[in-house]
């Protein structure tokens, strides 16, 4: 019974084993990405960048069909263009960066959907928006896993600079730290992982797997390191449960995974140890001192 539910699908089907590997890779790297997005108050920017990828992916699809590399390179170019453009607009005009990001990503989303529908079907559109975890190819799997490994190594290098850059950037610069460089590398890692995730969850669901577990972790953990560990763990649990749910209930895997992450987040908001709603409503008897 338990075997049929938990293990059988992976023994019986190669596509489930591939999906499992992809989910583990994406989940592990989602922890640090999501936690630092949150600590830098950039969660919304991550979401905007995920949308910004779409027209690039769509143009790649329009010219070359469902080709892994064309879509990835297109997404990368579009994402960098939007990030740069929103920065330029924010510096040179009275528009603030959040507004210019919102403006650009709405246009990007519209443009992306329009371009895909020019050539493909609704099925292709769904494939691009939400990935195709259950039919991921070898190339896609290698891209996802290699990006995850590279990102975790890069995090190990920039970690201490990035933490202090979030906490006290002025002090870090005064003692000769490389906060600005760490921040740049972090932005590049976000873009790379969103692009790689096109294959697995789709960029929109991938950013969900970054932000929701990290936000949930803040209710249970009190240090950056434990938030990251918990963020990755919760992303992994969401990924596995979502994948099982998708297999047994015949649901699309990306949305199933993000909804599990959403449930975990909702539970943390209600019952979280640090700042959860029930703690606020029922604070318990006061202490002696």
């Amino acid at each position: 019974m338990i075997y049929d539910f938990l293990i059988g699908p992976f023994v019986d089907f190669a596509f489930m084993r591939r999906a499992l590997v992809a989910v583990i890779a994406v989940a592990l790297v989602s922890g640090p990405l999501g936690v630092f997005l949150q600590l830098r108050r950039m969660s919304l920017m991550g979401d905007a960048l995920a949308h910004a990828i779409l027209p690039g992916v769509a143009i790649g699809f329009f010219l070359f069909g469902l080709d892994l590399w064309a879509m990835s390179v297109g997404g990368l170019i579009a994402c960098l263009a939007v990030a740069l453009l929103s920065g330029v607009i924010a510096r040179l005009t009275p528009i603030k960066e959040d507004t210019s990001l919102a403006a650009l990503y709405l246009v990007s989303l519209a443009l992306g959907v329009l371009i895909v529908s020019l050539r493909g079907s609704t099925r292709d559109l769904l494939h691009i928006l939400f990935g195709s975890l259950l039919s991921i190819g070898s190339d896609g799997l290698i891209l996802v896993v290699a990006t995850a490994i590279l990102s975790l190594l890069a995090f190990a290098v920039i970690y201490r600079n990035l933490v202090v850059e979030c906490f006290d950037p002025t002090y870090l610069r005064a003692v000769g730290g490389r906060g600005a460089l760490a921040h740049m590398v972090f932005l590049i890692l976000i873009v790379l992982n969103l692009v790689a995730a096109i294959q697995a969850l789709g960029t929109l669901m991938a950013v969900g797997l970054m932000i929701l577990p990290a936000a949930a972790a803040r209710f249970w953990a009190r240090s950056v390191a434990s938030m990251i560990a918990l963020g990755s763990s919760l992303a992994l649990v969401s990924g596995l449960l979502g994948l099982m749910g998708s297999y047994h209930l015949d649901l699309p895997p990306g949305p199933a995974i993000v909804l599990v992450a959403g449930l975990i987040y909702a539970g943390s908001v209600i019952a979280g140890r640090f700042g959860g709603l029930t703690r606020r409503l029922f604070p318990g008897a006061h202490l002696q001192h």
Partner: protein
Amino acid sequence: MAVAHLHTDHHHPHTEHRAGPTVTDPAIMLANVTIAYQRHPAVHHLTGAFAKGSLTALVGPNGAGKSTLLKAIVGLLPLNGGSIEVADRKGLAFLPQVTEVDRSFPMTVREVVDLGHWRRIGAFRRLSPAMRASSAAALAEVGLAGLDDRPIASLSVGQFQRVLFARLIAADASLIILDEPFNAIDQRTVQDLMALIERWHVSGRTVIAALHDLDFVRAHFPDCLLLAREPIAWGSTRDVLSAANLAAARGQADGWSGDADICAA
């Protein structure tokens, strides 16, 4: 140099004070320093030196460029003119204004104090047992012994400022620069931290602090630089904080407006 300021000429009654004290063994040399934001000078033609081992208060009206000058000395802002020479740049420690630090960040007291060792450990090396011991001693010196594992988010403003001072102690710096260290801090903490600054002074460290409370400066700081974008006076606190100089600083501040002519100096 004074006559050339087209837009502020009529505000300059104290040109004889405008070059700072000459010093034989300077910790910091400023030569004709100008720092501007969008072409408006925030610090304008400042020349002088901070002696090694001096304890100097930096005072002036709001917008006088105090914070700007300190950040430029630390190397955080580019100069538009002139030069700043710091004798022992590796021995410099800086306390940012408390508003520039994320006090809700998920970090413990001990982790913040350990950042004082950054110049020795950088991004990759581990803390040595001696560094750990010095962090613990620093916490004890600011009166927070035993709070090592407390998250900083649970501290009061005063306690948090004590933690940042412990970080300065751990840095073991020869030159300590404090940007508004006592803003919105309770009286008891101000007393304790001022006593700490005086111990730094006695042990021969150079200290510069941007401050507001003039009576407090008169009571605790031997030297003073009165800045109103232009240097108004620089020297011993008793001479600098004269009624005439303070009036000149206020007069200078009244003349600041959105438009100004190009400075020919």
